[in-house]
């Protein structure tokens, strides 16, 4: 194992000489995520403020004046505009208006007769401002509708409760920690997989096909180090870089939560409750063989490639597979499919999802762990065997 450690040490020393790569790999995540999260929070807040303070621009065609005064009485939320020229729908699409209401001509008369009248609303559902206008109109009309119903019931001498036989009171059974756990359980395996794979990808290519391209691999092979130790050393380096990248990115993401502004302290508390040492330990334990599996794949593709372009072309499609698996395991109901516990890689994601959702299943976790360890061991054996061949090493 000494030879493998020496090779890994050489790789890390070489990396330490490249300041730019060091910056991008180790410093940038700590600048990037706070900046992204902060910017997203700022934009969301600005959008929210704008929507809260800005009145929706609406046009109301109400010949009998049944609701116009109602809208006019709420200038904070509604700005009544005259009918725009041309097609009304086009005016909404062009965002000259947020919404148009078309009240039936006999609305006031219908109200007096305790009859129903129709209000047509034209909106652009692809525009947030238009949807907000509709929400505001709905709230205003629902409130007014209650007033009218009560007035009608009073006229008939009936109880106001007649039109309201029940009231639904909702209580949230999940505490913030469970909610946060479920979110993390869905996201975390996906993020960990992506970060481990992409984090080790470029370093793997540099240390394998890159060595061939720079004609340095031969100088390593000419030393007294056994060939399988050289291969294992490279594997160790690729794996370490993947794990380091995943941990750094996640740490940076976690530390960036305060930059999200309001509600972040609750999120931090909930996250702290979920991310206890046992959960994190179990997560790390299962990520080790998965990382080894990915690293072996990168190593195999990298060393067999003639140059870095060929290696990149072979390794990059792996990202899509990892993304696909990650997204698949995020889907609702996937955790209920029992057979998925026996599908490699997918079972790791599901085991983690349950771990964070307070539904930890020891057996499923052990199955996923054992299968991934087995897979990583087979891949390592295969890598050292295949890469020991002259054909793979001298391919150029």
């Amino acid at each position, binding site marked *: 194992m000494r030879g493998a450690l*020496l090779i890994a040490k050489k790789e890390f020393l*070489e990396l330490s*000489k490249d300041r730019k790569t060091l910056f991008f790999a180790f410093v940038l995540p700590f600048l990037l995520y706070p900046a992204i999260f902060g910017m997203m929070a700022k934009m969301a807040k600005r959008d929210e403020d704008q929507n809260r303070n800005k009145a929706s621009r609406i046009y109301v065609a109400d010949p009998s004046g049944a609701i116009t005064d109602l809208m006019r009485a709420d200038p904070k939320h509604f700005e009544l505009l005259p009918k725009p020229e041309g097609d009304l729908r086009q005016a909404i699409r062009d965002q000259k208006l947020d919404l148009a209401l078309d009240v039936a001509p006999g609305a006031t008369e219908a109200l007096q007769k305790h009859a129903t009248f129709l209000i047509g609303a034209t909106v652009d559902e692809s525009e947030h401002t238009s949807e907000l206008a509709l929400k505001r109109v709905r709230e205003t009309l629902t409130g007014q509708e209650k007033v009218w119903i009560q007035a009608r019931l009073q006229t008939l001498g009936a109880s106001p409760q007649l039109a309201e036989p029940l009231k639904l009171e909702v209580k949230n059974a999940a505490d913030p920690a469970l909610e946060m756990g479920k979110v993390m359980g869905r996201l975390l395996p996906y993020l960990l997989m992506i970060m481990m794979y992409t984090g080790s990808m470029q370093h793997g290519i540099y240390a394998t096909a890159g060595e061939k391209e720079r*004609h*340095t691999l031969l*100088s390593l092979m000419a*030393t*007294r*180090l056994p060939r399988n130790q050289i291969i294992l050393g490279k594997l160790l380096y690729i794996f370490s870089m993947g794990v380091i990248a995943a941990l750094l990115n996640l740490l940076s993401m976690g530390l960036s939560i305060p930059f999200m502004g309001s509600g972040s302290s609750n999120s931090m508390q909930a996250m702290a409750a979920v991310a206890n040492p046992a959960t994190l330990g179990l997560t790390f334990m299962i990520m080790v063989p998965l990382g080894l599996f990915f690293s072996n794949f990168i190593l195999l593709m990298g060393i067999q490639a003639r140059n870095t372009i060929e290696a990149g072309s072979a390794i990059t499609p792996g990202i899509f597979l990892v993304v696909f698996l990650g997204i698949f395991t995020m889907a609702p109901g996937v955790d209920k499919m029992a057979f998925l516990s026996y599908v490699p890689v997918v079972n790791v994601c599901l085991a983690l999802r349950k771990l964070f959702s307070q539904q930890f299943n020891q057996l499923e976790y052990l199955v996923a762990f054992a299968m991934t360890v087995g897979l990583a061991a087979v891949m390592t054996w295969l890598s050292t065997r295949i890469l020991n061949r002259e054909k793979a090493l*001298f391919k150029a």
Partner: protein
Amino acid sequence: MIQLNEVHKSFTVKDRKTRVTKRIDAVRGISLEVKPGEIYGLLGPNGAGKSTTLRMIAGLMDPDGGAISVCGHNTCQEPEAVRGCLGYLSTDMGVYVRFTPRELLRIFGEFQDVDPMVAERRGMHLLEKLQLADFADVKMEGFSSGQKQKVSIARALLHDPKVVIFDEPTTGLDVLTAKTVLDLLRIMREEGRTVIVSTHVMPMVEDICDRVGIIFDGKLHGDAPPREILQSRHAKSLDEVFFQLAAESEGGH
């Protein structure tokens, strides 16, 4: 110190046009012996099998047939022991340009299991001999090919190997740097090391090699001191012998 006995090596290549897989016999029954304190020159045109032979001697490739022994170790059975007593340099070899020569030698000292203090002392001594001591702590990114070649030589000799294999050591070097390399080879002979050099530079072979073997189509011709080869072939120079062998080879086909 180096013994090759009926060594064979073949490769399979695929013709991209015809999709037919062909077997190429790169080395066909080569036998030779190089003793300590001797410089053996291996000559031959491109693709004749020189580099393959040298790689097999260095334990980087296994022969398909025959046996190779270096420092008493079989290259197939004890490749690590062979590489431990052997310094190998090839023009194909690059250096890790992110390191300084001193750093590179320190790392390769660890790979070759050399005590760090010894590696430092020996590395600096070699760099001085190769007139590169002033650049010991300069990153190799800006080095010329000659300077990189000198660092590679120092790397190959760092663990004080008894056997030295230099595959085209002066290719791409200027006259002065080439002379430094040749002087180093002479010193190594005086120190009693076994040296094999492959080259295209005939005057260099006549100048420093004790014995010469010429490889054509994977077969060894000659294997005698340069003067004897010239006499037996009635040639004035090794270039002429080379052309004769090329003509014979073409006639044989």
